[in-house]
């Protein structure tokens, strides 16, 4: 930022326009255009965006460090001093994210052409996917909080639409809504965070939600406000990035088509929270307490999700919990101040986790949609490409030295250690071991051992078509080599990505080489021991897991049932809410109290009418009597009056 310049770069608008056009085309013309054209258009839209991103990256690299490209679509909400544009800003952080989104997005779009090859609703699918890409690009390119919020909610919407893509299944639709609603809880926090921040700046005379301006004047914000805003934004992040306490939607989100799980629920959308925290790093750095919270929630989530992943038998569900766990790492890094490391982990995670999902998708494709690992096994010969690429990905996520996950995770753990979070570091190391265990459990259960595939499915067992395997290979290469862009400082070309990001996200202090080496060794040892344990359990001695499960009893059941958190939420939140709405409000308060007051007034009027009309008996003498009473009353009034005044 110090020496950076900001350059107008109108092509950024094009980057949004392409997927937008894809959406419009697919929605309105998709069915008529036919499958081939839809495939081409949809993939081209994202690939085009990727190429534009590369071009923009080239431009950016040509500028001094800390520079940014910008473009403004049009002015949006202008009220008084507050002027919010739909503005785009392409700095280092946005560049990395844009490349991941459009790059991995391109690969997954390509893969989808094969995966959704038989689905009749392909046009709708690609419309949603393009809409997602558009929203995600808005999220990462938006130069102010509110524009970012459009993308932020937009990706949530797309997530909902895609989880519920096969809407005929009521459960899928339910899961989609669950995701959206839980996300909205986070979004509410995000929105309140915006208000808190805007109010803090406004009270000092600065009306802005622009990242650059806020960053420049962050000193205007008191640390109390920063803490509050930081926590609110982090609430938003826990929703979007599936962290405790709002992670519950992500495992259920796996019912969507697998490319969706890969793109949205692994590679991009769920990391948006981390991106946001990194983007607001200047705010978080003001408030150590919030950083602690972020780090602790991250580490605990990482550990927690990893334990759950140990006992799941649904392949995508395991991957979902692993995603939650990995994002936990990212927050651990961010909380430790290593925003660069967190972003780096986003990148590597995007590679290997997308690959894992796509691999799982390939397995499912081969097995006719089977997701249960207890009905897999021994697939390595039938699915050689899938097997090989999955192995790379599993090694990467396990953080075996040399694979991409190793570098990023290592940086995170080192940062945690350096910043003094020893407990969290320890938790991270244990989680690393667990990661090795559950990931290789998945790997072995799927590809090794005895085949448990249902007999009916065996004849049709086949490797996926090239349109699906090519993306697998590309991602495998990235998973293998993608980590080398961020080597430890001083090693070969050093931490390129970290340096690239530094002007935006700041720098963390590092430890001397030897100590760093020791830390890496501990983490790697933990990961490898997990790997070995998995080998023993699921390849060498296949009977062992059952005995272990029986031995651990309640603990195992708790893990398998995900600690009963869904049930707990149901009991604590959902049921009371519906009770309140249905019984307390609808049937009691609205029907009796409020309605009753209204109908009661009407009934009182009718009752009064019924009573008074009884005076009108039809008997003329009663009338005379009434008359007389009235007359006497008037006379009495006169007497009273004359006595008082006379």
């Amino acid at each position, binding site marked *: 930022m110090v020496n950076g310049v900001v350059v107008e770069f109108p092509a950024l608008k094009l980057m949004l326009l392409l997927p937008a056009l894809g959406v419009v085309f697919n929605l309105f013309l998709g069915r008529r255009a036919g499958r081939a054209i839809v495939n081409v258009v949809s993939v081209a839209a994202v690939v085009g965006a990727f190429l534009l991103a590369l071009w923009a990256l080239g431009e950016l690299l040509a500028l001094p460090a800390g520079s940014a490209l910008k473009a403004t679509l049009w002015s949006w909400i202008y009220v008084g001093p507050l002027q919010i544009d739909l503005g785009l800003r392409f700095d280092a952080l946005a560049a990395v994210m844009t490349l991941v989104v459009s790059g991995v997005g391109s690969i997954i779009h390509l893969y989808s052409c094969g995966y959704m090859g038989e689905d009749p609703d392909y046009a709708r699918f690609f419309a949603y996917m393009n809409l997602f890409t558009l929203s995600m690009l808005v999220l990462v390119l938006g130069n102010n909080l509110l524009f970012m919020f459009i993308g932020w909610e937009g990706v949530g919407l797309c997530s909902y639409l895609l989880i519920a893509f096969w809407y005929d299944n009521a459960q899928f639709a339910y899961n989609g809504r669950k995701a959206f609603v839980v996300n909205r809880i986070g979004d509410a926090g995000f929105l309140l965070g915006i208000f808190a921040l805007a109010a803090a700046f406004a009270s000092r005379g600065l009306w802005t939600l622009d990242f650059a301006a806020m960053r420049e004047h962050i000193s205007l914000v008191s640390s109390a406000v920063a803490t509050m805003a930081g926590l609110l934004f982090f609430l938003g992040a826990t929703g979007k990035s599936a962290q405790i306490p709002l992670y519950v939607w992500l495992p259920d989100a796996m019912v969507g088509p697998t490319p969706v799980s890969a793109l949205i629920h692994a590679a991009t959308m769920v990391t948006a929270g981390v991106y946001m925290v990194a983007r607001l790093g200047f705010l978080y750095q003001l408030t150590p307490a919030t950083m602690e919270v972020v780090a602790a929630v991250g580490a605990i989530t990482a550990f927690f999700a990893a334990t759950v992943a140990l006992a799941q038998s649904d392949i995508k569900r395991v991957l979902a919990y692993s995603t939650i766990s990995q994002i936990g790492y990212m927050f651990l890094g961010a909380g430790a101040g290593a925003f660069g490391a967190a972003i780096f982990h986003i990148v590597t995670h995007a590679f290997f986790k997308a690959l894992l999902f796509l691999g799982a998708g390939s397995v499912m494709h081969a097995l006719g949609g089977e997701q249960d690992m207890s009905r897999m096994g021994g697939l390595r010969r039938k699915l050689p490409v899938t097997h090989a690429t999955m192995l790379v990905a599993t090694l990467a996520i396990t953080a075996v030295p040399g694979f991409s996950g190793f570098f990023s995770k290592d940086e995170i753990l080192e940062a945690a250690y350096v910043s003094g979070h020893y407990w969290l570091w320890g938790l991270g190391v244990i989680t690393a071991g667990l990661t090795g265990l559950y990931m290789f459990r998945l790997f072995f259960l799927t590809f090794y051992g005895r085949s448990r595939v249902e007999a009916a499915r065996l004849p049709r067992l086949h490797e996926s078509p090239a349109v699906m395997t090519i993306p697998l290979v590309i991602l495998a290469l990235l998973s293998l080599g993608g980590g080398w862009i961020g080597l430890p400082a001083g090693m070969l070309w050093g931490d390129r990505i970290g340096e690239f990001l530094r002007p935006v996200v700041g720098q963390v202090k590092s430890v001397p080489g030897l100590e760093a080496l020791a830390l890496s060794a501990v983490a790697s040892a933990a990961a490898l021991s997990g790997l070995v344990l998995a080998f023993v359990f699921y390849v060498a001695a296949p009977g062992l897991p059952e005995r272990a499960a029986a031995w651990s009893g309640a603990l195992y059941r708790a893990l398998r049932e995900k600690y009963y958190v869904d049930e707990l939420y149901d009991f604590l939140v959902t049921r009371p809410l519906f009770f309140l709405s249905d019984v307390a409000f609808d049937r009691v308060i609205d029907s009796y109290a409020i309605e009753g007051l209204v109908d009661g007034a009407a009934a009182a*009027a*009718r009752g*009064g*009418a*019924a009573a*008074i*009309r009884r*005076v*009108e008996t*039809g008997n*003329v003498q*009663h*009338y*005379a009597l*009434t*008359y007389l*009473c*009235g*007359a006497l*009353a*008037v*006379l009495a*009034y*006169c*007497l009273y*009056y*004359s006595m008082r*005044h*006379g």
Partner: protein
Amino acid sequence: MISGTIGAALDASWRPVLAPAVVAITAMAVMLVGSRLGEEDSEGLGWLTFSGLALAALCAFAAVGRHAPAFAGALIVDDYTAFFYCLIAVCAAMVVLLSLDYVPALELPSTEYYALLLSATVGMMLLAAAGDLIIIFLGLETMSISVYVMAAIARRDPRSSEAGLKYFLLGAFSTGFLLYGIALLYGATGSIKLEAISRALQSSALAASPLVLLGLAMMLIGFGFKVAAVPFHAWTPDAYEGAPTPVTALMAVGVKSAAFAGFLRLLLVYLPALHAQWGGALWVLAALTMSVGNLVALAQNNVKRMLAYSAIAHAGYILVGMTAAGGAAGAAVLYYLLGYAFANLGAFAVLVAVERVEQPGTTLADLGGLAKGQPMLAAAMALFMLSLMGLPPLAGFVGKFYVFSAALQAGYVWLVVLAALNSVISTYYYARVIVAMYVNEGAERKLRARRPGLSVALAVAIAATIIIGVDPRPYVEMAAGAYASAAGIARSGVRAAFLAH
């Protein structure tokens, strides 16, 4: 023009009674002609009556622009008198138009019917013009006795004779009270001339005397009966329901206007000195009248009976205006009566049109589906209901607006709030009529072929209800001028009070 010619031809002292005289002469003519004609010629008699009343309405203008006692103060001729002469004549004429269909259909004795209608009109006019207590009494009785008979004139309908009888018994009973009041007031002040009474009461010693108070109370009771104020209202529903529909219209509009004309002149013009005494009583009467009228109307299914209670309720609103006293109130009440008269006449005209011969009286069920069979009739009825409800820009709304203004101006905030709440209640039963016509399904019924007279009456009522509401200015001027002339204050005085300049 005609009035001018006639007026010039006559001695000036006859001018005040020109209109009632015309009506009285017409009444005699009707009796003479009627005795020569068969019953089948009732329509001719009707038109004769109508022309007499129309002429009387024109003659009413002969009284405009003067303020002078006539016949030694027995009658007062001023714009106020002219206003009511005109209003009463028009109302009676409208009732004639309603009767053109009705009299032959129910085989009522036409000669007697029209003659009584005319004599009732004479009584109303006298009441409006009365300058002394005797004329008040005479006018009241001339009007009442005629109407008693008219109410009972449908001899084949037991309800008609019951209505007439009840009305008569209670009316006579009430006359006793009124008379007693007259006697006491006369005894206390030594005069039967309103002017003189008013002057005498300027002295505060006299104003506080119990005799005056008792007399005043008795007068209140007597007039309270005629204007159907609660608790002296009990006759109203039965009499309205049982009487032939045009007669009900006459009671609701003519009798009521005339009674208020006399009542208003007595209290506001001649007894303002006693406002402290009668104001409180009237406050209570107004509140009771509005509330009871509106509440009980809620429970009615017979439209005529419902309109009877509605008439009671409207009397309550008018009493609110009277309670306020003062120039603004006087003008507001006059204007209110104008708007009220046409909306009510119109409503009764519709009832006449839809009433079945074999079963007089109309329930809400009888109105079912009217909008389909008779869209114009239904629309007209809806319009009248809306005006009575007090919805802008119809006459009923502006009337309410002025009455509320006058009362608020005098500081009667709570009474006005009560009136507003009552208006809310009234919405329900007026709207029920609309629902019956527009929402409910009814049996297809063939209605009598309508004579043009009824259509004319409807058209006049519709036009008046709209025009008086949309452009109230000339009518407000008229009302304000009339009241100013009666109260003997400069017209601009009322304008200053009531309008803003």
